[in-house]
């Protein structure tokens, strides 16, 4: 049976992150209800959730299987975002290589889109690290 409460938690956290980003650059709600600190907290929660599910997935997949699954889950939407950004906002096409290896967030000034894409690189490589240690 599917766990709807965890799905709900994902939706809740994601909306907080997106609205936090929105409010960070466009303070629509004013400083009295600034969502930016909450989006940082939501990211922490998202990481905990990600680590938990990665551990659970290790029962179903081996190390390479889990990495491929995670990579295939992250790459298509990220690639789409980067390609569209390059096309629309004329950013450098060399960023595609960075996106392909999921490097954002791993070293200073490694972000591509400056809107939370560091999360993907950090998430993928840390899942890789912890799964490797666990196995």
């Amino acid at each position, binding site marked *: 049976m599917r*766990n*709807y*409460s*965890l*799905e*709900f*938690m994902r*939706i809740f956290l*994601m909306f907080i*992150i*997106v609205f936090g*980003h*929105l409010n960070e*650059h*466009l303070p*629509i709600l004013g400083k*009295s*209800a600034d*969502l930016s*600190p909450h989006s*940082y*907290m939501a*990211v*922490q*929660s998202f*990481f*905990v*959730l*990600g*680590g*938990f*599910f*990665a*551990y*659970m997935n290790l029962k179903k997949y081996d190390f390479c299987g889990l990495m491929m699954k995670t990579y295939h889950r992250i790459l*298509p*939407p990220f*690639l*789409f*975002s980067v390609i569209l*950004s390059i096309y*629309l*906002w004329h950013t450098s096409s060399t960023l595609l290589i960075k996106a392909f290896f999921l490097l954002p*967030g*791993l*070293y*200073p000034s490694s972000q591509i*889109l*400056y*809107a*939370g*894409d*560091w*999360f993907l690189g*950090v*998430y993928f490589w*840390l*899942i890789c690290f*912890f799964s490797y240690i*666990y196995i």
Partner: protein
Amino acid sequence: MTVIVIFCFFCISVNAQADNSFMSTYWHVIPSELPRGFISIGGGFLLGSVSDKIKIEKSLLSIAIFTFFEFYFLRLFFNFLLSPAPSKYSFNLLEWTIVNCFLVYSFYNLNGMISILINKIDKVNYVSRYVFSFFMAHMIPMHYVYVNKSNYPAAEICFAFLGATIVLTLIEYHLFSKRLYPYAVAWLRKILF
């Protein structure tokens, strides 16, 4: 044990006030996002292994304890949300990680009252499949706003931003992730192997 001690020590060393200065304090101590992820993903892994070994039977006491943690999470979260910055509440990364771990455990095993109630909303499935695409799609208009340091009226930009994000989410999910990408991967496999 060493890992746990290092983990706790590290969490305690980065605790700060709950306003915007939390992250500036964090970045002042550690100028990278990697340790933040390390703490939380490590916490998630630790939680996974603990929840594998310890199964808590559902009883009135366990439901009461986990309901307390669920409300504790909401208290921490909404204190930030409702209080004007700089907030008087302090933010502790260790506290936040522990409460999160209890919350995820509670939501996973349906131990608390809130998780039991939320689990009854089965239509959430129709929204949750778009969540990841929504996150990715918001980066594109966000990138534009960030790069151009937009000075347009905030409400108009907000509507444009949300509209663009929703349209891009649908395109990303239905067209790119579900159709083009699998087709491209299959085609590449056919060519290469």
